[in-house]
């Protein structure tokens, strides 16, 4: 093991950037090595900042701080504003911040702080106004030239990080998930649908002790992996339309699906997206530009996707709560100024702009719609990095694409591993996933650095990363709480309970209804949904997705987003009452236990418990005919929360 701090790094400067609040070396190296203080001590980030956020930051933020006093960071408080330093560490009586709060002078015209809140601030100052010591990131050695680690070894490293934290917090972990919970989970996460009854039975009856690893490999090798992740990336790239509808761009979806299935290195894929030119018909990656047609929209989408940053605010003014300035936003937007996109094609058009600009190379004029800075000319600049020398005539995007995917970019690998982590665990190590900033440190800084390092050194190999994640004990834990970990939402002591996305729900309903029996068109996007959709006609899947997707765009994987109308569709929809091919195939099965087994496997990927057989058998016996009874049980199962959640 060797420590990494701001001055020493095994993998280049970008690894440093992964260290929680010290990223971008905003803090001297010595602080990263501070010993961890006892948990009880009051720190700025944990205790004080939440209070300030609630009561003070509306006025004392970075935009136009009242009295020039910015209270967002410890350093800014120590520096103070118009009236000098706001806090004298160790001396509340000499600290204007405490004086103003204690006297009730601040916050002005708003709810006063409660006594406990005041005491927290006093205790913080009295205790030396400490900041939270950054987690010291130590990455395991890798031999020179070694690329990706062995996935099993890597999974063990991940487990160790998580388990050490749990042990320190004295939170017990839930036991491993049983086979059927694991089976259903890994299908939903990797191929975006539940397993068929046959697939479920085969796995449950397989006695090979290595069957979980084999299933992960099989699913990653299946073309459905690409279909599922193609949809996931597609939905991140293509914004909703003005009526908040999801409009699919099938060429891009297929392009991404093929890209995933070929397991192209992610840096290559991103370069392909960022430098796409020509007609969509020939190069579907161009959809990135046809659906994000303006430099500002491109900057927002690219920052969220490839940097894990929400730069939106900085479009119109310096970001009030983070370090990003308006110059950073437009510095990136400048690289997109030569893009000309219409609905069908993208071209690079340098001639358009040369005359309005004073500086050569990438530059852009902040438009009049901005609150500040309108009219000023901003030169192209990599985010938090250098200002490249560029040819006046461009093209500009290859330079940006090269930098975004390079080791000099501190954000790229972290943003991607964090997003993939959140796909599998329901929550990012930095959360929300696209909100990396100083005040929002990762829950597990070392783990994030480790994953980013692994991802980069494996050549941005997504399948490799997914394999590492799915092989962990953490991923294979039960979602059921045990005594002592009920309240944990952060330390990964049990698996998160995620809600199926609208696409996954549609495809899984198709599987439950038995549509795989209709055959598998080999080149279709996804054979199962296509068959299901064909049976419903038209663009049923798109309609379903727009009806069922969470209306809250900020919704998270663990949020239940259905309302009464969605429930009523599932309750009264004709297919869901009739049970489709699955129930048809049982029409002549007279043995209720056998039929129940088939119904449970088709929907919940498990066999019924004895109690369930006992409860449902009398119901079946009461029905006029077999089919009615089986359709009733099918209805019950697909309407249960066990069906809808990925647990």
């Amino acid at each position: 093991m060797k420590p990494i701090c701001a001055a020493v790094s095994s993998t280049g400067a970008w690894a440093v950037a992964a260290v929680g609040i010290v990223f971008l070396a905003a803090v001297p190296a010595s602080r990263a090595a501070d010993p961890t203080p006892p948990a009880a001590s009051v720190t700025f980030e944990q205790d004080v900042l939440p209070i300030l956020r609630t009561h003070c930051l509306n006025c004392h933020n970075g935009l136009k701080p009242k009295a020039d006093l910015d209270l967002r960071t410890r350093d800014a408080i120590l520096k103070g504003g118009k009236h000098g330093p706001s806090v004298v560490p160790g001396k509340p009586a000499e600290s204007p911040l405490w004086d103003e709060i204690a006297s009730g002078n601040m916050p002005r015209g708003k709810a006063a702080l409660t006594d406990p809140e005041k005491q927290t601030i006093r205790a913080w100052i009295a205790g030396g106004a400490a900041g939270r010591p950054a987690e010291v990131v130590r990455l395991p050695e890798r031999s020179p030239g070694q690329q990706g680690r062995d996935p099993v070894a890597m999974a063990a490293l991940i487990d160790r990080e998580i388990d050490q934290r749990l042990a320190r917090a004295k939170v017990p972990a839930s036991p491993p998930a049983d086979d059927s919970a694991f089976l259903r989970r890994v299908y939903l996460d990797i191929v975006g649908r539940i397993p068929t009854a046959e697939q479920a039975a085969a796995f449950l009856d397989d006695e090979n002790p290595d069957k979980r690893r084999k299933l992960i490999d099989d699913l990653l090798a299946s073309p459905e992996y690409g279909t599922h992740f193609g949809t996931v990336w597609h939905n991140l790239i293509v914004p909703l339309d003005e009526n908040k509808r999801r409009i699919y761009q099938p060429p891009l979806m297929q392009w991404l699906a093929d890209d995933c299935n070929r397991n192209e290195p992610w840096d290559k894929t991103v370069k392909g997206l960022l430098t796409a030119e020509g007609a969509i018909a020939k190069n579907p990656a161009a959809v990135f530009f046809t659906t994000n047609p303006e430099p500002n929209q491109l900057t927002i989408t690219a920052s969220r996707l490839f940097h894990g940053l929400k730069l939106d605010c900085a479009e119109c003014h310096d970001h009030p709560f983070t370090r990003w300035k308006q110059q950073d936003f437009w510095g990136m937007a400048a690289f997109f100024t030569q893009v000309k996109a219409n609905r069908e094609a993208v071209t690079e058009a340098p001639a358009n702009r040369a005359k309005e600009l004073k500086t050569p190379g990438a530059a852009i004029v902040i438009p009049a719609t901005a609150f500040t800075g309108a009219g000023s000319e901003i030169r192209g600049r990599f985010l938090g990095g250098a200002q490249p020398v560029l040819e006046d005539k461009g093209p500009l995007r290859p330079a940006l694409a090269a930098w975004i995917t390079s080791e000099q970019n501190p954000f790229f690998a972290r943003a991607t591993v964090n997003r993939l982590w959140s796909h599998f665990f329901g929550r990012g190590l930095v959360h929300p996933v696209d909100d990396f900033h100083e005040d929002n440190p990762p829950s597990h800084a070392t783990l994030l650095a480790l994953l980013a390092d692994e991802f980069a050194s494996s050549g941005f190999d997504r399948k490799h990363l997914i394999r590492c994640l799915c092989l962990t004990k953490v991923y294979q834990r039960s979602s059921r709480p045990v005594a002592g970990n009920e309240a944990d939402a952060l330390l990964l002591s049990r698996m998160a309970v995620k809600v199926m996305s609208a696409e996954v729900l549609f495809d899984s309903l198709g599987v439950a209804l038995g549509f795989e029996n209709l055959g598998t068109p080999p080149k279709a996007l996804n054979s199962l949904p296509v068959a299901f959709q064909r049976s419903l006609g038209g663009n049923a899947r798109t309609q379903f997705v727009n009806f069922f997707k969470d209306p809250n765009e900020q919704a998270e994987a663990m949020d239940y987003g259905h309302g009464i109308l969605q429930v009523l569709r599932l309750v009264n929809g004709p297919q869901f009452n009739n049970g489709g091919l699955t129930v048809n195939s049982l029409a002549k099965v007279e043995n209720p236990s056998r039929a129940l087994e088939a119904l449970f496997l088709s929907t919940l990927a498990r066999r019924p418990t004895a109690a369930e057989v006992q409860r449902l058998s009398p119901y079946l016996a009461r029905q006029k005919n077999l089919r009615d009874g089986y359709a009733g049980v099918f209805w019950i199962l697909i309407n249960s929360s066990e069906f809808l959640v990925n647990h």
Partner: protein
Amino acid sequence: MTSSHGNSISRRDWLRLSVAGALGLSGSGWFGGLANRASGAAGQGRKIKSCILLWMGGGPSQLETFDMKPDGPEESRGELKPIATSVPGIQICEHLPKLAQQTGDLAILRSMSHNFPDHDRGPILMQTGFIRRPNLAHPHMGAVVSAEADDPERGLPAFVSVGTVPGPGFLSPRHGPMIMGDPTKGTEDFKLATDTQKFGQRVELLQAQEEEFHKHLPAQAVAAHRSAYLQATRLLNSNKLKAFDLAEEPVKVREAYGCNRPAPKGLGKRGSGEVKFGEGCLLARRLVEAGVPFVEVCHNRWDNHDYIFPSIQYHGAVIDDSMSALIVDLKERGLLDSTLIIWMGEMGRTPKFQRGGTNGGPTVGRDHFTAAYTAVLAGGGLKTGQVIGRTSKDGSAVEDRPISPPDFMATVYKALGIDFTKEYNARDGKPIEAARQGSQANGAQPVRLVEKGEKPVEELF
């Protein structure tokens, strides 16, 4: 509560108990229990008034609607003209002639202001009364009404929204909105696919399945799923579903509300696109009449950075027709005094022009503006026919009687008969008894319905 995890246990237990209680599990089961009670008249003895929120998403220009500046500088004045109203001394925009005739039923609040001029924080602030904080989600005012007017016998959802987002926050998921994307659709799934008896058997078995699963996996999503199913089956059992069916209304009424209006064209991307606002208002009246205490109807074409004058000409007429029809209709049915109508967006627009393009004229717009803008209240038994607050001659600042978001929320809650000083425990979503307010005993996290420092607009009461 002996362990350090007591809070989460109590929250789960509470959810379980409240769902079970409302389901009538002790009686004849999920379905039966509800069927027996669903026939009771909803809203009887309810003290809380109904509320219809007409949400003007994007932030409508106060200068082109209810706070015109005919004597201001050229850009504050704009291109539209004011007209006299039925109340001497009050003028509003020429494109609101019907509302001008009904100004006696309106209270125009011209001195609204806050500090969050964007479409992320502004709407949340104005719909919840609080800025969104990472660790605490405050409920939408509709969810508060749902919690305060909780009535297990209503047989209809308490909070219906024709298109919105913020949910129940820290309140129980069952107080979240029933979202109708399109007020004319959504009833196709209201018909049972099987007969009532068969359905009842299935529902009882589903309930058993759910209970067992939830016992093992007490996740928030599972609780929310159960709650949504409870509400949905309750709705199927009520005889009030026809309230959602606009086809029951005579053509004349639908016309008066401005239904079937052709989509506007040529108003730029922000002003164009179909709005079914008339249909939404008509649905709101039917639902309120059937006992739904909170309905939100959204009209989201007000972010007029460009094409502002033609946009207001079109959308002004939309709200003029629909809102005036709503007021008249509620009045005729004797429901106006017991129904508060709120017309507002998340902000207003700048007194200076914004020139969105190179073509000059039609692309003139106004930018986001929160320093001084207007909201309108109607009905609810308020003292209407008055203007509250005053802005400067150019509309750039509030000169008299500033109204902050907490002031506004307190006014709304007071009008509805809700004690706005009340505290809820954000950890379990339950109200805190009066005697224990402010106390953090038992790990409670007391949160007021309205941020402290509120001054309701007393002139209205």
